[in-house]
C-alpha cells in the first residue's frame, strides 16, 4: 500500500495559505542564514589551509648535500610594519637543473629579482632609499605570480644569486626564527611547512567555527519550531480526523525538511553569489584569490545538515501535539532539571582550569577545551534558569513577573535556548576583549639590529655609522655581545642602531643597513614580535567576526523563538485578552522571561570570559587592558539591545493573534 504521508503533506502545505507561507518563508530564511554562516566559516577554514599551502615552497624540505641541486635562503624584512618575505635561490654548479618555484616560469638566474605585484606596487610608491635599495637589482624586476603567493597583499621577493654569494653562504642555517629566516639545500619546492604568517589563520577559523556552530544550530532549530507552531492547529485537526501520531510526525518531518532544504539551498546560492564579495574580506595575511569556494561536496553537506537540523527540531517540538488531539501543547509535568547539571559543570570547570593552567596546548586540545566549556554552560544553563524561575516565583508580586517566573521553571530548557546564543557570545566576548592572547613582545621601539654572525661587531658598527650617515639617518650605534639576552638581539652578537625619527627613518635605516652583514637582514621590533603580533591580530579579527555574527544569530533566533512562542500560545493569550487581561501584561511577561535569564546568565558568562581572559594575560605576563572592559560592555549592551529589538519584533504578532477570533470548533 502506498503511504498517504507524502500526498497528505503536500496537501497540508498547499492549503496552509498565506500565513503558512509566511512562516515557511521565515523558517527558510533562518535556515538560509544558518547555512550561509556555516559555509562562510567553512570557506575561511578551508581557504586558509589552501593559501597556507601555497606559501610552503618558501621553506621546502631540505635534502642531503649529495642530492641538492640548489641552495635556498629565507629572510624577512619589514617595511612600515609589513613583513617582506625574501627568498634567495642559487643553482649549484654541475647539478641537474632545479625546477622553477611556484609563481615563476623558470628558476631565477643570478642577479634577477622577482617581486609580488603588491611589493612592486609598494616599491613604486616609496623612495628607493626606504625599500627598493634592499634588493640587488634596481630595475627590470620580474613578477612573482599567484601560484607563489598566499594572498594578493603579500609582499614577497625572489632573488637569484650565485652559490658563493655571501648573502647565501652567510645566511643563518635554521635557527629559532627559522620560519622567518633559514637556509637549506634543496632539490625542488615541495614543502609542508606553510609561512608563519599564514599558519594561524586556519586555527583561528576553526576556533571561530567551533564558537559559532552552536548558535547556528540553535537558529536552525528555532526555524523548525516556528514552522511547527504555525502548523500545530492544522495538524491537530488531522489528528482528530484520524491520522496516526506516526503519520503526523512523518508529515512534519518531511515538510520541515523540505523547508530547511529550500532554506539551505538558498543559503548556498547566496554564498555562491557572495563569493566575489567574500574574496575582498581581509583575514589574516590578506584578501583572497579563488580559494574560498568550498567545493560541491561540502556545500551539499552543509545544506543537508541544515535541512536535517530543521526537520529534527520540528519533529521533536511536535511530539506533544501528536499525542494530544486537542492540540493544546500542554505537558503534564514541568521538566525539572537536576542538580547533576551543576555538579558536572563544576567538574568540567575544574578540569578545564587545571588543564589550561599547564599551558602549552595544541590547537586540537584548546578546541576540545572550548567545546567542553561550551558544553558545560549548555548543561548549566537550564539549571540556572530553573533555579531563577523558582526563586522568582516565590517572591514575584506583580502578575507579569509571576508569569515569567512560572514559565522559566516550567520549561527551563526552552528559556535557555532562547538566550543561549547571547549568553555564549558573552563568554566569547569576555574572553576576546580582555584576553590579549599572544606572546608578550620585546619593547624596543626605534631600534634596528644586525646580527654579526661573521665579523666583529665593532667593525660592523663603524661601517653602520658610515652607511647611516650616507642615508642621512640620525641614529646612534652600539654593539652588543652574545651574553646580552634582554635586548632586541636576544643573545646574538651584533650592532643595535637607535634611530631618531619616525617609521620612515627606521625603514631608511633598515634599507641602508641591508648590505651590512650579507645573509643577515637588519631587523626591527616588528620582526622579533612577529609571532605574537600575528596571533593577536588574527584572534582579534576572528573574535570580532564571531562576536558580530554571534550576536546577530542570537538575536535572530531569539526573535524566531519569541514568534514561535506567541503562536504556540495564541489560544490562551487570545482568550486571556478577551477576558480583559491587558496585552501589556502578557507582553511584559514575555519580555521578562527572556530578560531575567539573560541578565543573570549573560552577566555570569561574561564575567567568566573576563576571568579567563585575565588568566591568559597572567600566563603570558601581560597587563590587562581596561579599554577591553569598556568595549565588552558596549558589545554586550549592543547584543542585548539587538535581542530585545528582535523580541519586540514579535509584538505586532502578539497583538494580531490575540485579536483573532477564538476559533472554537462548533
Amino acid at each position, binding site marked *: 500500500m502506498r503511504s498517504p504521508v507524502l500526498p497528505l503533506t503536500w496537501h497540508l502545505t498547499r492549503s496552509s495559505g498565506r500565513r503558512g507561507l509566511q512562516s515557511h518563508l521565515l523558517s527558510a530564511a533562518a535556515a538560509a542564514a544558518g547555512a550561509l554562516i556555516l559555509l562562510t566559516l567553512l570557506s575561511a577554514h578551508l581557504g586558509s589551509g589552501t593559501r597556507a599551502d601555497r606559501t610552503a615552497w618558501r621553506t621546502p624540505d631540505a635534502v642531503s648535500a649529495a642530492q641538492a641541486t640548489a641552495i635556498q635562503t629565507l629572510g624577512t624584512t619589514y617595511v612600515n610594519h609589513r613583513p617582506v618575505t625574501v627568498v634567495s635561490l642559487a643553482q649549484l654548479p654541475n647539478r641537474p637543473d632545479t625546477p622553477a618555484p611556484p609563481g615563476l616560469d623558470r628558476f631565477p638566474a643570478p642577479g634577477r629579482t622577482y617581486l609580488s605585484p603588491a611589493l612592486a606596487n609598494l616599491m613604486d610608491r616609496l623612495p628607493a632609499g626606504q625599500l627598493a635599495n634592499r634588493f640587488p637589482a634596481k630595475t627590470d624586476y620580474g613578477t612573482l605570480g599567484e601560484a607563489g603567493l598566499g594572498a594578493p597583499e603579500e609582499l614577497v621577493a625572489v632573488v637569484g644569486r650565485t652559490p658563493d654569494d655571501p648573502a647565501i653562504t652567510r645566511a643563518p642555517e635554521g635557527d629559532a626564527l627559522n620560519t622567518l629566516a633559514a637556509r637549506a639545500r634543496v632539490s625542488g619546492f615541495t614543502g609542508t611547512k606553510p609561512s608563519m604568517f599564514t599558519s594561524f589563520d586556519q586555527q583561528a577559523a576553526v576556533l571561530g567555527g567551533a564558537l559559532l556552530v552552536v548558535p547556528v544550530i540553535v537558529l536552525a532549530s528555532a526555524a523548525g519550531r516556528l514552522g511547527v507552531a504555525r502548523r500545530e492547529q492544522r495538524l491537530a485537526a488531522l489528528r482528530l480526523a484520524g491520522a496516526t501520531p506516526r503519520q503526523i510526525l512523518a508529515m512534519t518531518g518531511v515538510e520541515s525538511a523540505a523547508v530547511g532544504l529550500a532554506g539551505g539551498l538558498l543559503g548556498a546560492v547566496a554564498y555562491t553569489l557572495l563569493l566575489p564579495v567574500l574574496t575582498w574580506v581581509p583575514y589574516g595575511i590578506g584578501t583572497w584569490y579563488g580559494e574560498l569556494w568550498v567545493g560541491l561536496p561540502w556545500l551539499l553537506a552543509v545544506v543537508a545538515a541544515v535541512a536535517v537540523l530543521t526537520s529534527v527540531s520540528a519533529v521533536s517540538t511536535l511530539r506533544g501535539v501528536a499525542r494530544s488531539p486537542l492540540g*493544546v501543547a500542554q505537558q503534564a509535568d514541568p521538566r525539572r532539571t537536576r542538580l547533576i547539571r551543576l555538579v558536572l559543570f563544576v567538574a568540567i570547570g575544574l578540569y578545564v582550569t587545571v588543564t589550561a593552567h599547564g599551558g602549552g596546548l595544541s590547537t586540537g586540545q584548546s578546541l576540545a577545551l572550548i567545546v567542553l566549556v561550551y558544553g558545560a554552560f549548555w548543561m548549566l544553563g537550564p539549571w540556572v534558569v530553573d533555579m531563577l524561575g523558582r526563586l522568582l516565583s516565590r517572591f514575584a508580586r506583580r*502578575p507579569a513577573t*509571576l508569569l515569567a517566573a*512560572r514559565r522559566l521553571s516550567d520549561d527551563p530548557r526552552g528559556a535557555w535556548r532562547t538566550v543561549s546564543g547571547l549568553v555564549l557570545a558573552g563568554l566569547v566576548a569576555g574572553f576576546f576583549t580582555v584576553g590579549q592572547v599572544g606572546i608578550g613582545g620585546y619593547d624596543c621601539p626605534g631600534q634596528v639590529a644586525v646580527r654579526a654572525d661573521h665579523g666583529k661587531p665593532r667593525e660592523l658598527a663603524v661601517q653602520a655609522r658610515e652607511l647611516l650617515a650616507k642615508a642621512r639617518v640620525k641614529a646612534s650605534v652600539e654593539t652588543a655581545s652574545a651574553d646580552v639576552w634582554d635586548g632586541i638581539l636576544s643573545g646574538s652578537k651584533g650592532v643595535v642602531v637607535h634611530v631618531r625619527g619616525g617609521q620612515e627613518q627606521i625603514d631608511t635605516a633598515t634599507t641602508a643597513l641591508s648590505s651590512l652583514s650579507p645573509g643577515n637582514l637588519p631587523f626591527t621590533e616588528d620582526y622579533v614580535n612577529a609571532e605574537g603580533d600575528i596571533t593577536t591580530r588574527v584572534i582579534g579579527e576572528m573574535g570580532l567576526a564571531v562576536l558580530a555574527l554571534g550576536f546577530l544569530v542570537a538575536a535572530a533566533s531569539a526573535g524566531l523563538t519569541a514568534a514561535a512562542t506567541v503562536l504556540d500560545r495564541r489560544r*490562551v493569550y487570545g*482568550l486571556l485578552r*478577551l*477576558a*480583559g487581561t491587558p496585552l501589556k501584561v502578557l507582553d511584559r511577561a514575555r519580555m521578562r522571561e527572556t530578560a531575567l535569564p539573560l541578565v543573570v546568565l549573560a552577566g555570569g558568562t561574561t564575567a567568566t570570559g573576563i576571568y579567563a581572559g585575565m588568566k591568559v594575560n597572567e600566563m603570558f605576563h601581560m597587563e590587562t587592558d581596561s579599554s577591553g572592559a569598556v568595549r565588552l560592555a558596549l558589545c554586550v549592551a549592543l547584543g542585548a539591545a539587538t535581542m530585545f529589538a528582535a523580541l519586540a519584533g514579535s509584538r505586532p504578532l502578539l497583538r494580531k493573534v490575540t485579536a483573532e477570533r477564538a476559533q472554537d470548533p462548533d
Partner: protein
Amino acid sequence: MSTVLAGNGLIKKYGTTNALAGVDVQVAERESLAIMGPSGSGKSTLLHTLAGIIRPDRGQVLLRGERSEMEIPPAEGWGRVDHWGENRLSALRRKRFGFVFQFGQLLPELPAEENVALPLMLEGVPRRQAVQRARRWFAPLGLAGLEHRRPGQLSGGQAQRVAIARALAVEPDVVFADEPTGALDQSTGEEVIRLLTSVTRDQGAALVMVTHDAEVAAHCDRVLQVRDGRVSGYSQYTVA
C-alpha cells in the same frame, strides 16, 4: 426582576454575512440565559457583542451601574458599552464580567490557584491575598486538593471548573460562557453546568451561556433561540 445588561437592535455584518440582524435581548440580575441555535447562527457573535468584545455596527449595549458621562441618555446609571474605547472595555471585562470558554483558557505553567488568582492580581490585589481569595472557590466547585495542580495535570472537567472559579473570582455582575462543555463528555458536562449555574447564582451574578445542547440549556432560567442572526424565540421564564 431588574435588567443588568441589555442589547437593543444589535446588527453586525461580516462582509455580506449578517451575523446579527437586529437582536434585542435583556439579561436580568441573577438570571441564567441560554443562547441556543444551530452552528453559524450568530450565538458567539451575540455573546461577544454583549460582553464588549465586538462592537456592533448598529444598536446599543447597555450596562447598569456605569456612569454615563457624555453618553446620550436612555437613562442615568447606564453605560453605553458599544461606545467605549478598547482600554475601558478591557477594564470592564476584567472587573465586571467573567468568562468561561470551551477549552485552553488556563495558562499551562500556572498552578490552578494562581490561574484563579490572576484576575485579582491584575486588579492590584496583593499576591498572597489574591491566592487566598482564589482558594475559597475550590471547595464549592469540588476542586479541593487540586490547588497546586497545573492545568496539564487536570481532567477536562476539572479544568473547566477552575475556569469557572477564575470567572467568579472577581465577583462579576455577569458571567459569559461560550460552549463551556463543548469539549467534555456528557456526564462531565452535566456536572460542570450544574456547578456553573448554581455557583453563579449563589454568587449573585447573571449567566449568559452559549450552547447548542438542549439538555445544557435546560439548566438555565430562560432560553433564547437564535437563527440566522435573529431571535427566533424565547422560552418561558422558569424562574419563580
